[in-house]
């Protein structure tokens, strides 16, 4: 059932993804979470744990104080509250994560905020036993503790404080293929990135020059599947690149195409790929925009005498296309 890396042809991407093959022979991928995503989740959980513990303790003492004067067995109230604090501390420190991971299918509040989830290595949601094991073993993963007494031996309070260095867990994460700490190894779990949410994957066309240029792409030009994929990937990442970088990346594909279509050679490569993308993915779904004044300009090299509206640095104010 567990098929890690079915790509036996050696073209497996060098990435922190793991592939799980289901009985239906569907392979889906999970992206593993490394220590730098898990540390914030751990710290948030720690803060929540400490914060809620302090809050509950204060609340307990306030209630005890309010009841204290006229309650029966008033003398026993204080000790019972103290006892409750100890028991509460015990449960908070050992079972906070167990509870959340077991009942909210592998997410503690910290993991939920950071966008992580614990799942079994075969892709199943974790069971209560697994949650218990991996969280009890956290103590071993956080070892060795660094005693504060080393910094100032005279301070008596420092004797009781230890900073977990988590070296054991880090080494285990580095050594394992699924980025598992010891607790994960024993319980058979892994932590994956669990970002949900739909975003409309088709890029918006906000530049009127794009449909204008697309109308000059020869009608008999067919895009191969791999090129369509490359165009989609480019359009997806384009917003995260600076204009200069966009041109640099796009040039590899845009230049030979521009030569083939007989376009001017100073055409903006980014604009070129965008219009090809528009042509492949959007032209049918979007009503053809009104090109307005742009309709008169031509990007073709043979019409180069016409004032160049398509050339790279031209600043046509972008107007909404739809």
């Amino acid at each position, binding site marked *: 059932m567990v098929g890690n890396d079915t790509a036996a042809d050696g073209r497996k991407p060098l990435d922190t993804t793991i592939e799980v093959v*289901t009985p239906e022979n569907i392979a889906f991928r999970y992206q593993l979470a490394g220590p730098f995503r898990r540390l914030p989740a751990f710290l948030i959980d720690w803060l929540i744990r400490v914060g809620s513990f302090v809050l509950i303790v204060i609340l307990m003492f306030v209630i005890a104080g309010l009841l204290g004067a006229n309650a029966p067995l008033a*003398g026993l109230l204080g000790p019972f509250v103290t006892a409750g604090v*100890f028991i509460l501390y015990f449960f908070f420190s050992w079972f906070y994560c167990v509870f959340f991971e077991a009942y909210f299918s592998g997410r503690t509040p910290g993991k939920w905020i950071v966008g992580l989830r614990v799942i079994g290595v075969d892709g199943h949601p974790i069971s209560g036993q697994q949650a218990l094991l991996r969280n009890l073993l956290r103590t071993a993963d956080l070892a060795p503790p660094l005693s504060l007494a080393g910094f100032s031996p005279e301070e008596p309070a420092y004797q009781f404080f230890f900073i977990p260095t988590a070296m054991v867990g880090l080494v285990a994460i580095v050594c394992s293929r699924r980025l598992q700490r010891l607790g994960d190894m*024993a319980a058979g779990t892994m932590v994956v990135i669990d970002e*949900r949410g739909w975003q409309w994957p088709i890029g918006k066309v906000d530049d009127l020059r794009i449909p204008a240029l697309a109308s000059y792409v020869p009608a008999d030009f067919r895009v191969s599947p791999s090129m369509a994929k490359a165009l*989609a990937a480019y359009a997806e990442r384009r917003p995260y690149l600076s204009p200069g970088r966009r041109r640099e990346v796009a040039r590899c594909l845009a230049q030979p195409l521009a030569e083939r279509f007989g376009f001017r050679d100073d055409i903006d490569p980014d604009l070129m790929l965008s219009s090809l993308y528009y042509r*492949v993915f959007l032209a049918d779904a979007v009503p053809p925009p009104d090109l307005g004044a742009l309709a008169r300009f031509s990007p073709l090299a043979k019409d180069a005498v016409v004032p160049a509206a398509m050339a790279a640095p031209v600043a046509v104010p972008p107007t909404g296309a739809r």
Partner: protein
Amino acid sequence: MQWSLRPWPLRLLFHQRVPDERRFLERCFMNVAKILEQRRVQWFELEQLCSLLEVRGRIRRGSADQISRFAALYRSACADLALATAYQLPPATVTYLHQLVARAHNQLYRSRQSSLARWGEILFYEAPQAIFADPCVRVATLCFFGIFSLAMFAGYQEFAFPGFAEKMLGAAQIEQMEASFEQPIQGSMSHYISMSAFYIQHNTGIGLRCFAFGILLVPCLLTLCFNAAILGASFGYMARPESVGGENFLEFVTAHGPFELTAIALSAGAGLSLGMGWFRTAGLSRLDSLRTSARRSIPIISAAAVLFVLAAFTEGFLSPSPLPYVVKAGWGIFSSGLLMFYFVVLGFPRGGPRGT
């Protein structure tokens, strides 16, 4: 025969497949936006059903219609994922689909909820058998009780081993311990209640820490032996006739001692048997062997957890109570007998259908 067959495949190819393929490619290429628009409705529906089912236990409340609808939606999402390359879906959508299918898959193949009967079997059949047969439990128990009794003896014999208990525990801790047991248990229940809560928290913590460090083996033994020595030394010191509050101490620990000390030793044993998975691989890879041994150690740590709970109840209600010492000692003896029965009678290796 031959002439009638030959032209057909060609004609079929020409008339049916080629135009179909072209239409298919047209559909795939030109209408990604339209496809997405259509399919998205179902994907969202599946997503909503997933979040409905993800709240644990809700599945029973989901109607039959919803569940069969869920299966249909899951299948079509799987088909979409399989056809993602043919549809030329954008990479972001493929990622989204991967997550959606994974999520739905997890709801379809969710883990079996553990039943009460299963826990009964773990606690009353598997755990004693495993404890009796496991050499790691023997090592841990020997280490713990051996060092505990040695330290107790050394702490008690102040002339044969002068200064042992004082060095082991430190003057400050001895003072604190004597102060906390100064008052007699009869009449100062309030004092002992908060103290027993502290000891429950502290000693159960020791046990769990021993279990956790078991995966590294050496730190487990270290923690176990260290705490055995500390506990033994304080028992020995408090048993000295001249120590302050020694009587109260012994009266306090009698009732819950058997449960609690055994539970600490047991949880260390569970930890050790977990950690031995690194070495006793029995032909598996080390990782798989570790997972197997972790699964094997679960009955033992569950038994230890039950003992901790019993000890906690004893410590919370019986030990600080003003009941006469006979009751507490009786409970201590009774609990030791119970443990013996559990480990030996229930644990003795049996043949039979489920025999180990």
